[in-house]
């Protein structure tokens, strides 16, 4: 096999996991845009999505095509409850306190999952054919290709909705000026809820796709940290940043994992984060410095 072909295959795999990063980053962006909360529990909601699918498909024996929407809806419900029950009462508190609460929420979710399903990794029932796919001569895992296509479609749909749907206008208006949004008759608390519901549903969906590729475990929420790197670099409130940043980080992780060794991926990922934060020192909470890519 030529080096060139191998490089292409590695890159294609990178784009596949990159698309999942974009999808997860989208969950961060939606929630941050509406409520200015960096929800660190996105990774754990993603994990929960994987386990919900596992419970519905393997546990209850439902068809995967029923289990997938149920897992996505389940993620949305959790998001809605968290927003109403925990985040909304904290309105007006310092950003850092709300952030810490989401960190705690993540640990609670991990604990719950471990209580119910144990700590062992599990694999999900197959719902994507295993026969490999060839793009020209290059081999791609079919699962990764499916994940890429689905994530790509979802992110694109969100981009379009944001621009052209009236609800997208409401979300962007709320993100720009809450009082002015109220003054236009926009149901601002409703926008908060919707953003959390859709954001967490998206994360849960990403969890199903990720679980299909590499199995599920209570620690898979780590994936959310990579997505967080994407949004910090790409812009916490930029969907386009999530899309581009996710694909870029997917490629970088795939290349370093292959050519330098798996142990280097997180070193490189977080070095990238540090460099990004050094260039944009107000990083995490200084929204205006990182608004757009």
């Amino acid at each position, binding site marked *: 096999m030529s080096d060139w072909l191998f490089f292409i295959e590695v890159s294609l795999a990178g784009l596949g996991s990159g698309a999942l990063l974009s999808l997860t980053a989208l969950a961060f962006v939606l929630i941050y845009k509406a409520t200015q909360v960096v929800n660190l529990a996105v990774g754990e909601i993603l994990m929960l999505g994987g386990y919900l699918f596992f419970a519905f498909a393997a546990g209850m024996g439902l068809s995967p095509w029923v289990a997938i929407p149920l897992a996505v809806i389940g993620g949305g419900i959790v998001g809605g409850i968290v927003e109403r029950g925990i985040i909304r009462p904290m309105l*007006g508190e310092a950003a850092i306190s709300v952030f810490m609460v989401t960190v705690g929420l993540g640990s609670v979710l991990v604990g719950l999952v471990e209580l119910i399903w144990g700590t062992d990794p599990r694999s999900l029932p197959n719902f994507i054919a295993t026969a490999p796919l060839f793009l020209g001569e290059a081999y791609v895992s079919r699962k990764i290709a499916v994940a890429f296509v689905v994530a790509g479609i979802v992110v694109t749909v969100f981009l379009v909705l944001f621009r052209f749907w*009236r609800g997208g*206008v*409401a979300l*962007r*208006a709320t*993100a*720009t*000026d*809450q*009082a*002015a*949004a*109220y*003054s*236009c*008759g*926009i*149901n*601002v*608390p409703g926008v908060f809820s919707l953003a959390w519901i859709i954001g967490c549903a998206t994360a849960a969906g990403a969890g199903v796709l990720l679980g299909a590729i590499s199995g599920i475990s209570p620690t898979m929420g780590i994936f959310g940290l990579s997505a967080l790197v994407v949004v910090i670099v790409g812009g916490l409130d930029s969907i386009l940043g999530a899309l581009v940043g996710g694909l870029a980080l997917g490629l970088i992780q795939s290349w370093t994992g292959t050519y330098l060794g798996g142990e280097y991926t997180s070193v490189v990922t977080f070095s990238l984060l540090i460099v990004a934060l050094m260039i944009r020192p107000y990083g995490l909470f200084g929204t205006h410095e990182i608004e757009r890519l």
Partner: protein
Amino acid sequence: MTGDTILDVENIELVYNKSVQVLRGLSLKVPRGQVVTLLGSNGAGKSSTLKAVSRLLSLENGEVTAGRIRFDGQDTRGMEPHALVRKGLFHVMEGRRVFEDLTVEENLTAATFALSGRGVKRTSFDMVYDYFPRLYERRQSRAGYLSGGEQQMLAIGRALIAQPSLILLDEPSLGLSPLLVEEIFTIIGRINRQTGVSMLLVEQNAAVAFAIAHYGYIMENGKIQLDGPSERLMADQDVREFYLGQSDGEKSRSYREIKHYKRRKRWLS
């Protein structure tokens, strides 16, 4: 009484952060279909009064601790701001507050949420563009790139989209050139005459406010000091001197007159 009074503010007191009292028993009325102006110097509490009426106050940790506000006969206590907008009370906030990242058209789209659940037909954007042709030319540009005057037009345009029965206008003249102020106030007056919408207009520029208002209130330190029909206020010696910057004849501001004004203020309060 509710039939001809669209807004009735009775003796309200307003406190920020549970500690700073800004309004001390303020009352005013807006008759249906009329333009009423509320004048006062910096920090008198004009914007706070409007925020109390639109309930946007709740976003700033402010609270109406006494008195009553009725819009269209209904007590507004406890209502959410967006719900009040959907009942037809639109607040054009101080400083324009357009959504800078959104285009002109998207700003108008945002205001269509004011029509939710009201079963009325969506307002055509053309109505806004008829009043403000300049907005039509800039309809695809980001609102942040508009001039101050155009942003004020957009802020009023959003109110038009909402088909309100009462518009609260907070200092639409802020930061605009005299020529532009005149243009915008002419249009505000026309909107009132043509659509019949009632307005409560807060201003520091008393001259332009009186030009379109039927009735005026003058407030100091959180309560009304003087009120009356525009013509009468305009003819009032103190108002001419302190709000219109005119002094009659060769007399300049004398200590005696200032004393007289102070005495009168005390008498009125």
